[in-house]
């Protein structure tokens, strides 16, 4: 694909399909759907060049509600199917819609390999820390001890932190957002699309039926200013109501400090560098957790790297330039052949 952006003057309404949306009333998925429909006109792609691929789970109904090409596939495999779509036609804008069970349990293998290959796809991972469609079993992101229908005595396993897994799998783009900030979500979705390579966006999403309020400490109005560190590349890591609190590096640890207290000045506060290829600090940001530290929100990592499909194309182009065959018939007749007369 050339560098030119296809211009089109579509609006949010152009991306709304004719299918009735069937998520539970109050589900966090509604605001994500709306944010995606808001973001798409800003990426300048035509509807026919946009594809949504989903796996199985509540979130995976998403493609039916988008007026674009869509494929509701099988459990865990959206990453592999989306990879095939993108490799077949790199001009398409391809979005994988998945959940914490779909992407991190049954589809965990595909996710890590997609990330390390860096195929230019956008993954929207709806993380509600529960299985909704099967009515309330724990997921790979449920906190240890979670009481669910399949863990009446509490879970006995460590949860995954999706960002940690992503960075371990060599992700070049990882963002974390909440379903309660629609404008910010749309902004992040646009950034994910602009990033060339696999972009993983983890959305802290509320399941109103089986895990209501699981992200409240981070996403609710009353807590969000104190408990979210909203990251912006090149900006100091400040948070709190009056933005007096910040994050500094103390030895090998991040710590929360207050400007003006204990001799802390603004230049002690870390400045976010999402573009740093070294993932060490990104990983530390991913791991920040309440109550000691706020939760990092926004684009934690955004590193530019060549994509799998570009390298694949280069190899094919080179082979075609160097090839001594001009057609298949040439090739079939070449080499060790003999003639019977």
């Amino acid at each position, binding site marked *: 694909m050339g560098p030119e952006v296809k211009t089109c003057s579509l609006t949010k309404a152009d991306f709304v399909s004719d299918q009735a949306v069937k998520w539970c009333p109050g589900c966090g998925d509604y605001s994500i759907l709306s944010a995606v429909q808001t973001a798409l006109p800003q990426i300048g792609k035509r509807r026919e060049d946009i594809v949504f691929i989903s796996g199985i789970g509540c979130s995976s109904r998403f493609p039916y509600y988008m007026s674009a*090409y*869509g494929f509701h596939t099988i459990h865990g495999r959206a990453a592999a*199917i989306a*990879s*095939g779509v993108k490799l077949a036609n790199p001009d398409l804008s391809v979005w994988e819609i998945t959940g914490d069970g779909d992407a991190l349990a049954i589809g965990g293998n595909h996710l890590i390999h997609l990330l390390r290959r860096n195929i230019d796809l956008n993954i929207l991972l709806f993380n509600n820390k529960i299985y909704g469609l099967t009515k309330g079993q724990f997921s790979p992101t449920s906190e240890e001890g979670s009481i669910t229908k399949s863990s009446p005595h509490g879970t006995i396993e460590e949860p995954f932190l999706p960002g940690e897994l992503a960075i371990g799998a060599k992700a070049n783009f990882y963002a974390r957002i909440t379903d309660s900030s629609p404008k910010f979500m749309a902004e992040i979705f646009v950034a994910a699309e602009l990033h060339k390579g696999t972009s993983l966006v983890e959305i802290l999403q509320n399941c109103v039926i089986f895990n209501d309020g699981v992200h409240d400490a981070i996403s609710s109005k009353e807590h969000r200013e104190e408990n979210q560190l909203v990251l912006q590349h090149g900006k100091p890591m400040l948070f709190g109501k009056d933005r007096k609190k910040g994050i500094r590096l103390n030895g090998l640890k991040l710590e929360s400090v207050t400007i003006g207290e204990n001799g802390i000045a603004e230049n002690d506060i870390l400045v976010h560098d999402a573009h740093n290829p070294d993932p060490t600090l990104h990983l530390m940001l991913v791991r920040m957790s309440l109550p000691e530290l706020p939760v990092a929100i926004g684009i934690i990592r955004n590193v530019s790297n060549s994509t799998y499909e570009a390298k694949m194309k280069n190899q094919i182009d080179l*082979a*075609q330039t160097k090839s001594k065959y001009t057609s298949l018939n040439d090739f079939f007749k070449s080499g060790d052949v003999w003639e019977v007369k």
Partner: protein
Amino acid sequence: MSDSKRNLEVEKVVIKFAGDSGDGMQLTGSQFGDESGWLGNDIATFPDYPAEIRAPVGTVAGVSGFQIHFGKSGIHSPGDIADVLIAMNPAALKANLKSIRKQGIVITDSDSFDQKSIEKAEYTSNPFEDGSLDDYELIKVPISSLTKKAISSLELGLDNKSVMRCKNLFALGLVNCMFNRSLAQAEKFISEKFKKDAALVKANIAALNAGFNLAETIEAIAFAFTVLPASNEPGLYRNITGNKAVAWGLMAAAEKSKRKLFLGSYPITPATDIMQELVRHKWSGVKVFQAEDEIAGICSAIGASFAGNLAVTTTSGPGLALKGEAIGLAMMTELPLVIVNVQRGGPSTGLPTKTEQSDLMQALYGRNGESPVVVLAAGSPSDCFDYAFMACKIAMEHMTPVILLTDGYLGNGAEAWKVKTTDELPEMNLSDVISADETWKPYQRNVETLARKWVIPGMKGFEHRIGGLEKQDVSGNVSHDPANHEHMVKLRAEKVKRVQEFIPMQKVKGKDKNDLLVVGWGGTYGTIYGAVNELQKEGKNVAFAQFNYIHPLPKNTAEVFSKFKRIVVCELNLGQFASYLRIQLPEFKYSQINKVQGQPFTINELKEDINNILSS
């Protein structure tokens, strides 16, 4: 060639090279096979190698063999019983003696028959001394020491290990002399193979010549064979293995359909060669994606198909099991997809390097729900080209997954292939052209094939959603309506059945009205044909029906069967095709000949079994 030698003209010969898996027998065998092709012989080859890359040296488990059947004409299989065995050690002799013709020639590396090696091969006595070789023409050649001697005089500075690696070429030289061949082709091959190391070229050529000269001079090999060129129909030929033929058939289908070829695959024996062959041909535009597992292999192919590529996944039995759910998705979304299953010995990990036909039921039924797909089976290595092409054609024209069954015997086996050009191949009639004013719906169908249209992302105005949930007829919207579900289940089955209208009628080799019809399918073709052919020559009332279209069966199958008093189904499993025929055509009685040993049928055992049926 000295005059004292007997020069025998023979119609066909089976020769087997056997040695330790590190002895280079596959290379020697395939080179000898290639030479046979160049000399115009009809050939069939079959490598037989252990599952372990390097089993313990000198053990029977570590024996690697390569059999070549070459001759004037009528070579349909790599042959049951070898006329000539080259055994590089006692284990190779022990593993292969039972498949050597009595009075056949056994050439051994006598240097390797020391007490320790004889014990390692689990012989209780020295076979040279205990009379067990009395029925064979035994030729003892000190191959190891003669190879060493031939190379050491050149002072190339090679270590002992590198020198000993040349002994397979000594054996090749020796055999070349026996069959009245010049060494030109072999020398060319060596120069190419070792072009990066001049010393190795010299050493191997020296070993080759030493073997040749020895055969010419020693009295032990006081005869030579000439195998006449094949009387094949005129044209250009080349040797091809089944796996390579599959890869080339897929490439031909891509060119013919003007679709980009996409392969999503994961390494598995014995199918990996197809992926490795395709990836060498990036110049053709093929996209090869080695996925993280079998499931990602097929799923990436499904994605590529959705986006408009000719999409293929290749695998073997256990991999097909893993792909089952995804095949169901392709079937439900009615996307074209080719799944190549190079069958191996099962169940579970089974016998990875051995051949079997035991995945038929899995291919036909191994999915949840009512999930019909088209199933084809290739009959010979060169046949793999045509059926790979046909699998693509049917998949794209009928918008359905197609499973192509080959097997380890076909995949690794080679035979002469009459080179095809793409002009000779059938045209593709893809149902993808849509005019802008058409009132299109995702699941509206072609009235003849019942195929929906292949509308792909990028096409303006046709944005639509598909998925694994049940569809409402025509619109393709999600539907849980009970009557619609049953209607759609029947529609999908009917669509696959309609493929019958587009495939060739079932043929019979021999009189189409007779006592006994021998039925086979897939890779047993050559052996069954060979057996039936011989029986027919002996005046027996038998005919042969080879099935390549398994699901659906050719339309005239019942009519063909009705002309015979008895039907016997021969297959390398416990009777899967016979069971399938009992379901499809219950009006006939079927008897069975089965073998499940990880080895192909032999002509002799088939003849014996068929004779038993004839006389019963």
